[in-house]
């Protein structure tokens, strides 16, 4: 490891010199996150400068190859960069579905042309991506999707409707599952295509959630023209790409959730509201609930660590990602329930200043979606029982 010390020293020095003071302050809320994209309006000069400097280093996507705008770092180097950023509380300069999802898919399945076209703008925060997967009648049963792309010789004509498209109204491009062969069996005949959200025939409508936010949209495609070279992977083999990304997405779950509870211990929080007796929370049932929850969280974190270590050792994550997705989201829901128990009436205020605009209740409600989006808990348990445990179909 000691041969990485020069890298650490350089990185530390560079960050010290280049990360603006404002970008070292913890975010007050998620609204301070930099998403990037054509429509992005920087919230401060510091946010803009920070993005530019990091993009120049390729460190907005540290492990992507340099030729596509990434940093070309090894996993060990990337871990050091991460540690050094955390050391000074440096914010993530930019992040969106281009980094989390499309990038990994392109790197694995994309043609050289597609990589060169799409990866550098992602790295520079110039293009913001959204994901077009679910449809009103294809939720858990994603493979039954009906949005179709007709081959019109020099282009596809896309018609259909997507739902749960995250920030479709704010994104520039979409990666989208479409049916290119209506006669093939369900999982075949699907392709993974890319197109500009400003294309003619694309409309979006935000969906208001029970938390009051609208991070998702319904998205309608009416005779949208899509270039035929914008297919990732093979034509009609888009399901492979989708599955890879779903696993990838689930694997990313399991860290700490963002939001109010990030890094916050429930015990002291509860003590403020329910008081203590002899140093123990006065609400004995709440005390038991918090202790059991925290123990489960620590156990989950241990499992995440183990699975990741095995994955790095080349055993891969695979269906284990379903275990992580299931427990990560269920634990997060439990955390918010316990938080609400602790906060009492104050947790229920919806728009008061003292609750930061009803932050507690809104995050509690938002957490309910965790076990639905990205594959429901029920689907995860199905994957575990079939693929990990080998239980037979009926």
């Amino acid at each position: 490891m000691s041969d990485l010390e020069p890298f650490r020293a350089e990185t530390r020095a560079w960050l010290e010199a280049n990360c603006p003071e404002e970008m070292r302050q913890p975010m007050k809320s998620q609204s301070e996150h930099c998403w990037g994209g054509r429509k992005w309006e920087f919230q401060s000069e510091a946010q803009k400068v920070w993005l530019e400097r990091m993009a120049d280093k390729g460190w907005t996507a540290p492990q992507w190859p340099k030729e596509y705008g990434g940093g070309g770092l090894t996993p060990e180097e990337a871990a050091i960069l991460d540690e050094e950023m955390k050391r000074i509380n440096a914010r993530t300069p930019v992040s969106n579905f281009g980094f989390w999802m499309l990038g990994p898919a392109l790197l694995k399945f994309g043609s050289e042309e597609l990589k060169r076209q799409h990866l550098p703008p992602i790295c520079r925060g110039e293009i913001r991506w959204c994901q077009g997967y679910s449809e009103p009648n294809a939720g858990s049963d994603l493979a039954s999707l009906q949005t179709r792309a007709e081959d019109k010789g020099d282009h596809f004509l896309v018609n259909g409707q997507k739902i749960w498209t995250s920030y479709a109204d704010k994104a520039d491009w979409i990666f989208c599952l479409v049916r290119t062969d209506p006669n093939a069996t369900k999982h075949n005949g699907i392709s993974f295509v890319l197109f500009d959200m400003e294309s003619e025939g694309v409309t979006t409508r935000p969906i208001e959630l029970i938390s009051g936010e609208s991070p998702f949209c319904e998205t309608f495609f009416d005779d949208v023209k899509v270039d035929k070279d914008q297919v990732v992977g093979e034509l009609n083999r888009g399901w492979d790409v989708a599955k890879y990304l779903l696993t990838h997405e689930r694997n990313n779950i399991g860290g700490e959730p963002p939001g109010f509870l990030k890094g916050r211990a429930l015990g002291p929080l509860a003590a403020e509201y329910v008081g203590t007796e002899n140093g123990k929370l006065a609400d004995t049932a709440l005390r038991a609930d918090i202790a059991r929850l925290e123990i489960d969280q620590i156990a989950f974190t241990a499992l995440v660590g183990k699975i990741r270590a095995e994955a790095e050792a080349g055993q891969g994550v695979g269906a284990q990602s379903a275990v992580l997705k299931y427990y990560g989201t269920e634990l997060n829901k439990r955390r918010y329930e316990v938080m609400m128990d602790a906060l009492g009436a104050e947790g229920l205020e919806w728009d008061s200043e003292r609750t930061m605009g009803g932050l507690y209740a809104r995050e509690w409600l938002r957490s309910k979606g965790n076990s639905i989006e990205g594959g429901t808990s029920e689907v995860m348990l199905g994957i575990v029982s079939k693929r990990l445990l080998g239980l037979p179909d009926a």
Partner: protein
Amino acid sequence: MKLNDEQQMLQDSVARLMADKGPVSHLRQLRDENNEKGYDEPLWQAMVEAGLTGILVPEEHGGIGFGLVGAGLVAREIGRNLSVTPFLSSAVLGAAALSAGGSDAQKAEWLPAIAEGRAITALAVDDGAKHRPEAIQARVENGTLSGAKLLVLDGHVADLLLVAAQGDNGAGLYLVDPNAGGVTIERTRMADDRNAARVRFDNAPAEAMADGAAALDAALRAGRAVLAAELSGLALEVFERTLAYLKERKQFGRLIGTFQALQHRAALLSGEVAMSEALAMQALDACDRGAEDADQLVLAAKSKAAKVALLAGQEGVQMHGGIGMTDEFDIGFFLKRARAGGETLGDANYCADRFAALRGY
């Protein structure tokens, strides 16, 4: 217990009334228009006309004296429809408090006004974010009250505040005119879109009751028992809507209600809902009968109902999937109300704690 004919008739008529005049869509509308009063006035008028505001008020004061079982039956339908009225605040908490602890003059002044819908009362108990009536902070000295209260349901539309405060003889309720000097009312919109307020008292004039401690006890017992019925009704409604969805939504080429894992969870939920309902009715009945174990039963019922309503809300959202997460769909309103109603007058943990204390452990 089993409903008698009179109670069964009440339940049927209230069920029709609430479904007709107090459906969930009214709650949504009140919210969307940011209604100033924050409750469903036409429904409230209809309830006044049906005599429901006098359900706990003795006949000599113009009520129908139907007892807590009757109030619980009304609350059950309120729970099913998420109807928004000051029924709990005024017809239950106000009537119970005044009946139990009011002087003859106070009863004569306020009980008929409550029964006839001329007055709305609001109960102010909680000094902090958690319900802790054993440790009331507000104080009355020389006839004036000082302190701060929150989660005062319908506080901003009340004609009379019933405020829990420490006095010369310990804690009890006092009558405070919301328009008097020294009273500051801040409406707080809650997650369940119900009326609540934070109220500050700075040497506000406060009128003692004949037995303020008895009034506080009676209000808490009645309120918790009635909330248990409301939450049970809510849980039943969420369950039934979810069950219907299981029979209608298809994924993987089949109705999702054919998936055994969901079937078993639905069966479990149905049992929990049935137990919550049965216990709530038993607790209400025990109060009416003056049974020895009424307090234990009420605490158990409120604790159970809070848990079950929340579980129903959680399962309701999860089984509806994405659509359950949208504001456009009603299920989220039930989840929000489950939590808010569960918190009101003592959450599941608080009630279980008091229950354990009563049982000596």
